[in-house]
Structure formats: C-alpha cells, structure tokens
C-alpha cells in the first residue's frame, strides 16, 4: 500500500516511500517546468545533471525533483 500523500499541481496522489518527486510528477503526467519558450519539460537525465526537472516544492523554486524524495504533505508545482 502506498504510504506517502502529496499534492502535484493541486491534485492529491499517493506514492511509495522512496519515490522521487520527478518520478511522481511523471506518474501524474505533470511537466516539471515550462521552458523559456513555453515548452513543457520533464526529467531527462534522472541524475541531477540536466536541471530539466527543476520544480517548485513547498513553495521553493528550482528544486531538483529527480534528487528529492517525496514526503508526506509535500506540495509540488510545475515551475512556470
């Protein structure tokens, strides 16, 4: 049974402990950020190099979603 509850762009979802924020956003079909020319982007490298997955986590911008673990009550938003 999934054991962590978080919100992605306002939608509640549950994930297993150890899930990264980038993986949860993919699962929720939510882009991590909108590029400077307006394209939706999701994680590319998955290992903290490309910064395509930087998202807004608990109100803090530019968080590397692929290196952050989901935590209970976390509020995640696509960076725009």
């Amino acid at each position, binding site marked *: 049974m999934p054991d962590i509850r978080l919100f992605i762009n306002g939608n509640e979802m549950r994930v297993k402990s150890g899930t*990264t924020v980038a*993986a949860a956003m*993919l699962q929720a*079909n939510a882009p991590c950020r909108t590029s*400077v020319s307006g394209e939706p982007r999701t994680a*590319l*490298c*998955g*290992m903290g190099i490309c*910064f395509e997955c930087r998202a807004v986590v608990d109100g803090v911008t530019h968080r590397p979603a692929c290196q952050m673990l989901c935590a209970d009550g976390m509020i995640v938003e696509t960076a725009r």
Partner: protein
Amino acid sequence: MTQTQVLVVGAGPAGIAAAAAAAEQGCEVVLLDDNAGPGGQIWRAGVPEAKSGEYAARDRALARLQRSGATILGGHRVFDAHARLAPDGAGTLLALRQDRTGATAVRFAYQHAILATGARERFLPFPGWTLPGVFGAGGLQALVKGGFAVEGKRVLVAGTGPLLLAVAAHLKAYGAHVIAVAEQASLAQLAPFAASLWSNPAKIWQGLGYRAALAGAPYRTGCWPVAATAAGEGSFLESVTLSDGKRTWQEPCDLLACGFHLVPNTELAVLMGCELAGGFVKVDRQQRTSLPGVFCVGEPTGIAGLEAALVQGEIAGLACAGQASKALEKQAAAERAFASRLERAFALRPELLKLASANTIICRCEDVPFGSLAGHSGWTDAKLQTRCGMGPCQGRVCGPAVEALLGWTPVSVRPPIFPVPLSALCLSDDSLTADDELKQSELLKENA
C-alpha cells in the same frame, strides 16, 4: 567546518570502494553524494526493487561501507573548491546541503580528496528530443528506480553503448514492453569488440544475460533515431522515426530512452586544477592526479565501467592510508584497455551529427536553436550572443553535443560548478557545520 583525513566525492561504486578501503585502514573518511543515499547510478536503489540478482554485489559493497565506519552524507552537492595554502596543508571543498526545506552551504577540509564524480550520458539533439516522453537511457532507468511505473508501456531504447542493453533488460524487468533496442554502431564495428570480450568471460555472461532477459525485443545494430513526434503541440511523445541509412520508418511508442554513451564529469577536477589527458583526468597507477593529495577514480579517468571503478576506488583508498596495491594495479591496467576498446566499438557515425535542423533546440536550459549557433566562432562568442550553455546545467548537456556537432571544446570551469541559491551563499557562514549552526542558533535565542 567539518575536518576529515579523507574526503570522497561521489558515492557510486568507485567512491564506495574508496571510502570503505580507506576507512578499513583506520582513516577518518567522509563520503559525500548529491543523491539522498549511496549507490550512484548503476547501484541506485529501486522503489520497488526489480527482481534480479544484479544487486548482490551492491548489497555486499554497501554492507562493507557501513561496517567500515566511513561517514556517509547524502544530499550534499560539491560546488566549489579552495586550494591548499601550503603543500601539506588541508584543502577545502564547499558543498550545498539539500533537504526538503532548502539548501545550506557547508565546508569540508581534507588531507586527501578522492574524486569519484562519475559520468553522465551524452545527448545528441534531433528534432523532438525535448518532448515529454523522451529521456536519457540511464535517465529513464533512474526515474523508474525512483518510482515511475512503466508497466505495459511501449519503450524504444536507442543510441549507443553497452548501457542500452542493460537499460532495456532492466525496464523489461519492471514490466515495460521494450519494442526494440536501436544501436547506432554497425555490426562490423561491434564485432571486434565482441570478439575481444573472450579475454573477459564475466562481461560476456553479463551481456548474454541481458540479451536473454530481452527475449522478443530486437537488437538492431546500425540503426538510429532521426526524429521524435508528439500528437500535437505541448503533448506527449507518440512515435519515433528510426533510420538504418537506407530507409526510415516509424516506431509508435510511449517512451524513448536514448543516450549516446557516456561523458566524464570532470568539472570538479578541472576547477581544482587537476591536469586532463584526452578529456579525462590524468592519474598515475595509484590514481593520484597532478595535484598533491587529490585522487580520481572511476569514469572521470576513462569510461571503463563497474569493475574498473571498483578496483580504482580500492587502490586510491589504500593509497590514502599509505598501503600498496600492486596486484590491484595490474587489474586496473587491464580494465583501462577495456575502456579504449569500448570507445572504438561505439564511436559515433557521421549521420548522427546531421540530425539537428536549424530550429532543433541545442541548449535546453535557454531554448537556443541550432540555427542560431551558425556563424559563431566558439563557446565564448556563442555564449555572449545566444546564451547557449548559460543555463542551470552550465553546458553539461549541450556542451558534449556542441563538441560533437561543431567541434567546440569547453573554455573554462568556474565556481560555483552547480547552481547555488544566493541565500545559501550569503546567509550561511561556510565555516559552520550542522552542529555549529545549531549551537549558534541556540546562542542567538539566549541573547535575544
């Protein structure tokens, strides 16, 4: 400031071996990694773990690391280095400590530093490579280990290098439907490499194991992606166009895992002033760089894979403790020969360098199209005029691509080598450790 005898940067196989070896010899060791836990890429923990025997070696290595007494600090990303004031004095590194609430800068002083910063995938731009649904090959593997469910999804694995087979087998173990593995290298190019593996049966068995795990998914050599398309603007990947040089065809798929072998993460070594040779960090037989007290192990010294990383880490860890490692050095030399065979076998074909059209984005951070790089003489010029390579990845993605496409080599590495929030630089006294910070905040409360 945290002081330690041995500071290891990077907790992949090389860093784990180095930290454990040094700590077992009685050295005080701190092991830093920017991910939450140790393992690096190849030994990354999964949620849930795929059923396979491939984690036995990792579990043994992690158990040994725990027993060794080394201090393991996850969520620490090294972004700056300061030279020693005297040849026998301590060097210092600055790391960004990242947790749920934010980031703080912390300083570490060391007698010996072991750089185990690993490698990243090389990406080559083609139309559609920025679409949601297109990932690095190792990138998708990492995300799946991080909890992204691929069960029942149609995945195309493409690019080049031995990683493709491993990734495909892994995705299949997680329930993905791998429709094909497209390897750009030709069979003729791969044959001498495959034959040379007879000198290393372990690697053959590994390859055969992956192949068997992939039963039903074709492994196409001499085949590469030329474009990725989505259903409409702003939507998800729908199909990938493949080519074998004679014809092109569409492969409908949900996900594309695409990487073109690996490039070494040499930024920290270069920032510290270590000499490079042929794009890799120059080391002697005991993994010593050109800087006194600074060692480098694993992929930054040559893309040679897991076994090389482990033996190099062991050698450097022992060297920090003043221990010899003659037998290991022989093994390391054999693994280095494997690296050069790998490079020849998976050399990029010229067709791959013609995939980007004028409006294909090259720099994903700043959305700089290939066309706008035309007419610029090199990095400095292009950065000033187009902002290519000026985003948060600092050219780690577009740099190797531009080097392949236009032959431009990187001009400089400057601190911070990763983006750091201004608040972390300004608000924290970088000479403080977590404990000091706690004491200071208590002191402030008392004085208030």
